[in-house]
């Protein structure tokens, strides 16, 4: 990943006002149009159905189009409101844990040089070429009674007797960290990697301790990476279905399961759609707020 480059630390416009631009090139149009078109056709268009359906009447596996707010009323009832809050807490906790595990690893990888860095990153990625479900199923076997984890913890004296880890919140969080770790590590490495050594060394030369350098130089520069990692983990976690089911015994109900079961088990598309729309709105507001707060999503002039 050796990059010969000028001064990326003062990234972007370096705080000055952008100079008047040349006429927009065809390439720029193309670069924006291709993704916009693809996503419009394969994502936004189908999604429009969801929105329309959320105002319809359920026909058990079908929808009678119309305009009613009953679905929203039901979706906003106390039970699903509480479910949404529980889901939010769950995703934020899992994402924070995931980032906490990922950051030191990313820092280690980013500090390596050349070939070693690639190998270190590759080692993180290789496990993800194996099927996710199989790995989670294997994780249940490791954490089961009489499994390897129990044997290991007993061996080092951290635990005595049988270990009932499976079907607990702890197991779910372990699984969540496991599943989302590389998606947290990669954006962090990508950004950490771009922080020039010279800058860190300069800070040290000026007498700052390692900690102060980390705190005041490295961490702020990592902000876009942290924000990306947080977003890439927390938001999909809101819809997570499989891990809570396989590792947590399906106790406690999360929004992903609630919506999915409206669609499937009750065949109630309008209610499922209304719940989905509400989740979209709520998460949209939260993400926008988060973006404002961390300022990680805009090019921060510094």
């Amino acid at each position, binding site marked *: 990943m050796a990059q010969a480059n000028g001064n990326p630390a003062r990234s972007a416009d370096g705080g000055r006002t952008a100079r008047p631009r040349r006429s927009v090139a065809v390439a720029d149009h193309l670069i924006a149009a291709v993704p916009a078109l693809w996503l419009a056709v394969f*994502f936004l268009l189908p*999604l429009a159905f969801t929105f329309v359906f959320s105002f319809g009447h359920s026909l058990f596996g079908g929808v009678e189009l119309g305009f009613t707010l009953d679905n929203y009323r039901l979706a906003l009832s106390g039970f699903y409101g509480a479910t949404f809050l529980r889901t939010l807490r769950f995703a934020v906790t899992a994402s924070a844990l995931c980032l906490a595990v990922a950051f030191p690893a990313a820092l280690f990888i980013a500090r390596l040089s050349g070939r070693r860095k690639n190998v270190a990153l590759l080692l993180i990625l290789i496990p993800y070429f194996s099927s996710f479900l199989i790995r989670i199923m294997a994780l249940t076997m490791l954490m089961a009674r009489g499994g390897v984890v129990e044997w290991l913890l007993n061996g080092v004296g951290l635990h005595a007797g049988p270990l009932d880890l499976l079907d607990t919140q702890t197991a779910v969080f372990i699984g969540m960290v496991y599943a989302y770790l590389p998606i947290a590590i990669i954006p962090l490495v990508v950004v950490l990697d771009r922080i020039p050594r010279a800058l860190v060394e300069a800070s040290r030369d000026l007498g700052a301790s390692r900690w102060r350098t980390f705190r005041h130089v490295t961490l702020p520069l990592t902000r876009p990476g942290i924000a990306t990692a947080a977003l890439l983990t927390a938001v999909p976690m809101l819809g997570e279905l499989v891990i809570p089911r396989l590792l947590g015994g399906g106790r406690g109900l999360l929004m992903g399961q609630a919506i999915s079961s409206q669609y499937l088990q009750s065949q109630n598309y309008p209610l499922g759609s209304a719940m989905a729309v509400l989740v979209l709105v709520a998460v949209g507001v939260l993400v926008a707020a988060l973006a404002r707060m961390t300022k990680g999503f805009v090019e921060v002039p510094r």
Partner: protein
Amino acid sequence: MSPPPVPESSRLANLLQGRATDRALALWYALVVVFLFAPILCALVYAFNLGIVGKQTSTFTGWTLQWFPAAWHDTSLRRAVGTSLVVSFWSALISVLVGTALGYALIRHPSPPVRRLLSAITYFLLIVPESVIGVSSLLFYAVTAIRLSSATLVAGITPVAIAVVALIVRARVLTLDRRVEEAAADLGSTRAKTLRFIVLPQMLPAILASAVMAYTFSFDNLVISTFLTTPRLNTLPVYLYGSLQYGPAPTVYAAASVVFLFTLAMLGVAFLLFRLTSRRPRGSAAL
């Protein structure tokens, strides 16, 4: 992980502490790798487990090789594996192309409204629960009378993978110095040339990393695939998830292990070919 603050001037302390920090980081990284590999090793070992009445058990009941031929003879499992490999290859390819463009445009598109619109779509992609994408896609194809096929399956999976690619690439673009591009333009380079020769090489590591993520996201997609499979098109996650209801057979462990090793081998070959064909002696993109 983070060491406590120390007196600023103490250089020696800094040095010692630095070494301790490095060691702690290395240890942490090692633990992470062990954590990530443990379930894979477990799955590999349990592909040889006898199980009980044809089902997998976490108690190791004895060694056997029978599940490998059994997995091969289970044509629906075999087909599912093949479909998964093909579909995720295409999905990853498309996602990388579209997602890289998106990730770049998110930051560098000259028009702020366009940037805002693209960001809105990208974040929107992440927020929408997969079951919603799945059901609405199924309804969409029903209404438009498009028959489900591998193309619709790929198209259905790509949006989420595109978002992942776009955000990783975007994080990289944020750290690139825009003035380099401007300098190139000032020196007479066309926009397309600048993108090709200045921007792309700088983004390559991020693109490759995101390609891996796009591939695994696609390969592991369960919820959307559930809705978009067809009589002749079934994917491995859909098969695996279904098998949980009646208890999975060790055959799925055998199949998954073989797929994993096969994928690694393919990656190795790809890497070697890349190294051989790469003109630069020290390929900057050797990820």
